[in-house]
């Protein structure tokens, strides 16, 4: 395994395979994928649609168990094939952050409440959660929209709130699935740079699935996926 930044592996996957269906309808979405990501490292997963990127990301995110293979997060084994070795919900709560193409903010909560709820779910007291949520929104430059509902925010602002939510519990791993697909190139780059900033300053590992080749210089490493297989790593230009 190639560790580009730091010594501790934030995530390590070994021989991950995901097969949907069986018999004539069997589809191999991911085949023998192995890699690791260090703390503070930002990694990109590239590849055409149907290459298996999202399958890999959701497997690491513990919401779509692999058919075979093992997943370690923070050095702890969490999945062995489709068998969970930890309480998945509790593990996600404490160690993982998610950002998607759509911000997926909870529609009936304001921007600050969307971040606050992530903290309260992790047993942070409401007042402290509110304070921390405001700090995160401020860090991401959307504090002035804290009381707005998602409908009243632009796509970029929504995505920043989603990033703030993903950061709320200081996860060791942030998983982002095409987070800039709905944004223009300028705002897309801002979000990518935000991930790098977060990784550098907070020590989280970040895995980003993207089609956007214009921001590849932001990443420490990029992998190309095709037909469910992971290609060789390319070292980025940002280090």
């Amino acid at each position: 395994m190639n560790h580009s930044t730091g010594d501790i592996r934030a995530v390590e996957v070994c021989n991950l395979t995901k097969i949907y269906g069986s018999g004539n309808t069997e589809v191999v979405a991911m085949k023998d994928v192995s890699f690791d990501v260090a703390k503070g490292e930002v990694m990109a997963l590239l590849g055409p649609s149907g290459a298996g990127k999202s399958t890999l990301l959701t497997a690491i995110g513990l919401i779509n168990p692999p058919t075979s293979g093992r997943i370690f997060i923070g050095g702890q084994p969490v999945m062995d094939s489709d068998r969970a070795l930890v309480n998945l919900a509790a593990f996600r709560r404490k160690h993982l952050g998610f950002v998607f193409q759509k911000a997926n903010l909870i529609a009936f909560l304001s921007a600050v409440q969307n971040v606050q709820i992530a903290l309260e779910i992790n047993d942070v007291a409401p007042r402290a959660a509110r304070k921390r949520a405001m700090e995160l929104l401020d860090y991401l430059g959307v504090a002035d929209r804290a009381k707005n509902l998602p409908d009243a925010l632009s796509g970029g602002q929504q995505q920043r709130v989603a990033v703030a939510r993903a950061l709320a519990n200081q996860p060791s791993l942030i998983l982002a699935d095409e987070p800039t697909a709905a944004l223009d190139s300028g705002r897309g780059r801002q979000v990518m740079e935000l991930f790098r900033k977060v990784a550098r300053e907070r020590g989280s590992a970040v895995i980003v699935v993207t089609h956007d080749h214009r921001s590849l210089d932001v990443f420490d490493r990029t992998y190309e996926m095709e037909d469910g297989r992971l290609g060789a790593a390319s070292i980025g230009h940002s280090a």
Partner: protein
Amino acid sequence: MNLAAQDIRQNIGRFVLTALGIGLLLMLVLGMGGIYHGLSFEATQLVDQIGADFWAVQKDTRGPFAEISRLPANLKFRLLAVPGVQSAHSFVSHTVQREVQGKPLRMFVQGLDWPDDRGGWLRLVAGRPLAQGHYEMIADKIIGLDLGDKILLGKDIYTVVGLTGGMVSSSGDGMAFFSARDAMDVQFDVSGETARLERAARRARTASQDVGRLQPELLERVGGPSSTLPALAAPLVSAILVNVAPGADLNTVVATVSAWPDVTVHTHESQRQLLLHGNVDRARRQLGLFRVILVVVSTIIMALIIYTLTLDKTHDIAMLKLMGARHRVIAGLILQQALLLGALGYGIACYIGQWLFPLFPRRVMIATTDLWVLAGIVLAISVLASLLGIAQAMRVEPNKVLS
């Protein structure tokens, strides 16, 4: 942070409209209970207000409220002679329907034993009890008459001198109180032609018999008014109401009268039970059953509403699960919303019912226990209804966020 409250705050219009619908449904449940109690109250209120210790009625009948009961009016003097009896009053009861100013006028006529009973025991809302033995009446407001109104019943005109409120029969007809004599006149009134035909028939019957042929004067007598014929009995009354003297043993008096071969005795309590389990029993059971059905329907509707609200939040629930929310957070969101919906619906039901029920044509009696029972029912159906939504929410997978 209370997710249920936040969701409601952002969708307050829809929530209030939904609660209004549930509230109206719950008001029906409450109203059915009120009608049920009202029916029982109306069925027994006359018996309760008259306060007689026992009713003497025609042998082997169940009294004037259940079937026709006819007794000679002079029975009351026999009853007064029984040791321990303090008072005995004739009671006449029947329903009449007339047309006054083009509108049907239906009333449950009660005859009071003038002059001993002038209706002083009635709870009048206006006017006074009867002050003379003829041509005065006390009417319930529901009949639609006012003080001073004059109506023609039979061949006489009666003036309304008193008004009661809520005195109705078990079938919902307003009560009208007359002297027993007037009540019988109203009951047995016949047209002039009918009287003439009856007299002619009487004459013909008499003429065809020995007594008529041998006593020609008798033919003239039988052609006169029936009240002048000693051979014809006086009009019959429906029952005799009896009160025993203070210190007298009711059971002993009842046993004495019950032994008479021409009378059946019903005590106050047995009369009440006859009314409750006879006249209105089926209606009460029907209302009770309908109430149960309404509760079931309310539960189903509420469950569907909660289920739909949960479906609307599927994506948000998936996101919460992805963030690692515990089941109790998500179940709490749904349960709290169901309870809030139920509580608001309950409040609306009570508030609207309070204004609406008095406008109903029949009495709707809401007791405090009814409100507690409904609160319990609402709590139960809120919890039951939320189970469907919670079951749906538990099935939502976190990866639904991606779809």
